[in-house]
């Protein structure tokens, strides 16, 4: 169960404002997190608490393929990004590194900055405690859910490598 406060942003939040290229000579959470969302909201890193949730509009994470973007967000302590839609490379990257993401319209429209949300990822439920409203997100396709359940692509790929070795025997 995830619980945290909302940091709300608009549509088309691009990877350049999530983590500018000037920091992309690094790729660890430790190095990137202090600059997460720096060019969008200079106070974000100061304000964010462990477990907090980013809520945003359409096409979150558009732009570059830099995996540094979800790494910076995860490293800053964000437990989940809820958006109306995600740019597809950001979507894959988040799932691959084990940053939970949820796609839903209503919960985004009705959430305000600072609202407290409780998210049950296994059931796909988002509860806005401040507004006393609950939303349901449709489940991920099975293959993607399996990657999520394993905490990301690293464990998934390890298994796939083993499977392939067995197939070759």
């Amino acid at each position, binding site marked *: 169960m995830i619980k945290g406060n909302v940091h709300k942003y608009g549509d*088309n939040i*691009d990877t*350049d*404002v999530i983590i*500018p*290229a*000037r920091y*992309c*000579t*690094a*790729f660890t959470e430790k190095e990137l997190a202090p600059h997460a969302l720096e*060019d969008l909201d200079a106070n974000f890193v100061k304000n964010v608490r462990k477990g907090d949730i980013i809520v945003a509009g*359409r*096409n979150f994470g*558009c*732009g*570059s*393929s*830099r*995996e*540094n973007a979800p790494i910076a967000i995860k490293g800053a302590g964000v437990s989940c990004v809820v958006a109306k*839609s995600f*740019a*597809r*490379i950001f979507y*894959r*990257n988040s799932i*691959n*590194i084990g940053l939970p993401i949820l796609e839903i319209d209503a919960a985004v429209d009705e959430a305000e900055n600072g609202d407290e949300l409780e998210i049950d990822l296994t059931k796909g439920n988002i509860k806005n405690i401040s507004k006393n409203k609950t939303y349901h997100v449709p489940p991920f*396709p099975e*293959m*993607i859910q399996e990657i999520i359940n394993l905490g*990301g*692509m*690293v464990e*998934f*790929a*390890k298994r*796939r*490598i083993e499977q*392939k070795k067995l197939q070759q025997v």
Partner: protein
Amino acid sequence: MTISEKIFAAHCGRDSVKAGELVYANLDLVMGTDVTVPLSVSVFNQIGAEKVFDNKKIALVNDHFVPAKDIQAAGLSKTMREFAIKYDIQNYFEVGRSGICHCIVPDSGLVVPGDLIIGADSHTCTYGALGAFATGVGSTDMATSWALGENWFKVPPTIKIIYKGTLQPFVSGKDIILHTIGKLGVEGALYCALEFEGDIIDELSLADRFTICNMAIEAGAKSGIIKADKKVLDFLEGKTNRKFTSYSSDADAKFLDVIEIDVTNLEPQIAFPYLPSNVKPISEVEQIKVDQVVIGSCTNGRMEDFRAAAKILEGKEIAPYVRLIVIPATQEIYLQMMFEGLLNTFIHAGGTISPPTCGPCIGGHMGILGENEVGLYTTNRNFKGRNGHLSSKVFLCSPVVASASALKGFITDPREV
């Protein structure tokens, strides 16, 4: 089936697939750069991979922060170089024998029609101009693909865009794609393949087709793709001896949408800050002073781009206090520009020539914008802060608009110089 569906079917050993299906598919090429490879190397080690799936099907390109912009960047290239040596990667592109990935990779014959390609760079969709399905991924996907030679994909639905009419002088592939992104919006093709066709596409040079497919991502698309024709076969001549299949969409293929665009009245287009979809025809653009003009990038760094840009500058000098930065996309293009005298033209006009690099396009180096400065770039994105100071602004345009504007010092219609 659409071209894209046919390519996925062929790469997952099936007769047919449908948009929306999740499939595992085999890859023909996995491409990465100095900025994305080092993280992949770390993931590759974490997953316990002992070898790469095929050392001929991996391309590693020094382009983003090269020649190394600082000590950290030197470290990134060093990590990539060591990986290339360790696994004997056949397509490793070193500084001096390299270029911007989306130009050097197809120019080296590493892309053929019908290929399924991923690249850890969002503009990998460029290769669709040769009839390949190519899409951008992140570093973890690249790492697991190096190990497995496959990845999972959701087969995308396709939006077909048909261009008709007559293209006017000084209007290019860049204007066509900027106009299209303006119509679709930056998420108008989210998760979709964009298939470009029509008489106009047939007439366009490959350089213009690369430009068009390159910016498919700016409409949110997974790929841009154009059916391979004779121009593609001519381009590949002497570059590769790989056998390939050229696919085209069936008459009864299902498209999510079919959009017809008549380009007859299309003017040069300008994308205003801070989105590539924020497009206006040049006749509606008021006088906007520019500090720096950049001609180059994976979008517009090819010979055809420089020839067109140089023609406008020939024997002339750019406006005082304007910086013009010209970036040949590859060493080969750099040499060709020298042979054709284009370097002379740009330098005599007051421009400076950068070695091949992504540099200013990502705000890396070789021309970062200062406080409140205005750039006019032939690149692909103008997000806030991307190219320098947070208060700087970048407008996007074609090479001829860039040249004409460098001459005047403000955004200028190339038909008026």
